[in-house]
């Protein structure tokens, strides 16, 4: 099922399907095909935090809602 990253469930793993054209995302390693594990979502319009290979990153809500992912079964 295709959903946006902001709505992903903490603890589950996802494959990135599409990202907006935003250079910083690919330079940090978030591009379509990459696998991420959703860690936390922060309330009140906060970001989401993710595990991406060996590192942890956080992505603001306005970007996360534009990144589409599919859960890894």
């Amino acid at each position, binding site marked *: 099922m295709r959903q946006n990253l902001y709505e992903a469930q903490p603890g589950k793993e996802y494959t990135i399907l599409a990202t907006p054209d935003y250079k910083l995302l690919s330079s940090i390693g978030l591009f379509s*095909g990459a696998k991420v594990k959703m860690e936390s979502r922060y309330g*009140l*319009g906060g970001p989401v935090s993710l595990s991406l290979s*060996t*590192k942890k990153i*956080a*992505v603001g809500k*306005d970007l996360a809602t534009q990144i589409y992912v599919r859960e890894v079964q």
Partner: protein
Amino acid sequence: MGRSCHELQEDREVLELRDKILLMGPPNVGKSVFFSELTSIHVVSSNYAGTTVSYMKGTVSLNGRAYNLLDVPGTYSLAATSLAEEVALQFLASDPLAILFVLNAADLEGSIKLLLEVLEFEIPVVAALNLADVASRKGMEIDLELLQQELGVPIVPTVAVKRQGLRELVDELSRVVASSEAAAASVKRAEEARRGSDLELWQRAQQITAKCLRWTNGKPSRLDRLGDAMLKPWPGIPLAVLVILLSVGVVVGAGKALRAVLLLPLVNGFIVPFFEGLFSRFALPAVVHNVLIGEFGIFRISFEWILALVMPYVLLFQLVFSFLEDSGVLPRIAVLFDNIMRKLGVQGGSLISIMLGYGCAVPAIIGTRTATTRKERLIVTTIICFAVPCISQTGALFSLLSAYSYWLVLAVLAVGLLVFALVSVLTSRFLQGTVDPLVIEIPNLLIPEPRAYFKKFFIRAKHFVVDAEGPMLVAVVIAALLAETGILTGLSTVLRPLVSGWLGLPPEASMSLILGIIRREMSVAPLLALQLDGLQVFVGAVVSLIYLPCMSVFGILAKEFGAKVAVAIGAGTTVTALFLGGVLNHLIRFLLSFA
């Protein structure tokens, strides 16, 4: 980007240096440690780990010769998405002899990807595989032989904070530099470098990582678990608040204690009496005597203000802030409070520059170069100039306010935060352009290694003494001349309608407005000597909080944004400070008349 030439003007001299070796690597890999261990530092432009966006220059001795080692800002890529990346690109294009690249063993993939980008410039590279200890704690085993083969560069494993592997690294660098000099003509220019797409580079980095990295059972340390906990909303937010309160408590509390127990007795009991005795031996004219050692004499207030008022807070702040920076706490705070910052029109990442600004605005404004848009840089810079007092000023304000009541400390803090929020909301509303959302890597939580930590602390402390001492002494001399020659009396008469009529302060407080032009804390210091009531203390503190940023800040504003922005911020802060101060004075006086 047209603005880059203007904003990066000061780098030109460095770009033209000969015999350059670049120190490069992703953020949070400990490049600054390599830099301070390998060099005798000559020029320090700024040194803020993880937020270094200016460069540092030092010399390193190889094969018995001195070479310039330049610490290039840490970036994730060379895509020129921020000024920091542009700076990195300019350095690469400036014909360096070699690159010392620091790989993060705990994030091999990301650092290999950046290295692949760097390798496209075809400059000889020596790599250090740093944080090997963190990687093995996490259960990663790296095949060094294979990695060297895949990347085609010599790699030396290091734990830089413990000086492990540094000698081998210098040997390897000497060798590479020697052969680079022999083949200097073959170095390709940056413009000609072939650039693979980000995706290609990531795929290649993934392949190499998959070949060279093996996972074993890692034992996450207690620190790793704390690092993870600090990142979750619960218990992360209470922990972050606790860390901030604790840091403020240590700086302010220990600063006050140091002042009361050690510095004030030293200044009032020994230093000032010594100079009083000294100067009374000569039959000096009264004016000269007073300028030297009168109530506002140079040899009295330079010690009372600089040594006893500013020094303790500045040093303690550096001590605490360096720890926060090196430990990896700051990016966690940025993530946890991104939601609030987003509502104020910026993003959590700007909090790192802003927190830096509570130390000193100059590195904080340089630090905004990590921002991806000019609008964000301008918002953050405006917030820092209007609402973020530097630590010297905070120390002075705290001494002034706490002598009257701790409630006043809280009241001024509340005004500061309110102005912070207002400036942020208004500038983000009315400035043109956009602010990009948060994208940030969260480093491992670390306990800073004492050697590297104290070395950094001493460099910063020395810098404060070198950079700030001059302007502070100028302010002191002006204060002495104003107060002890009668000029102040005349000036106070002229400014009386403003200072007394509007702000409700004694006329002599006009000195604050004059000295505040030079340095921020100098607008507070004269108030300490006046007999003020609670309202006057509050109004004086609010005015000096918002009033002009200091001269050095004007310098950096003009350099980074141009004269127009500097003048606008100067006029804006002055008008706002005086307006708000007067309104508060009259409003509270009016309300008190009912009590």
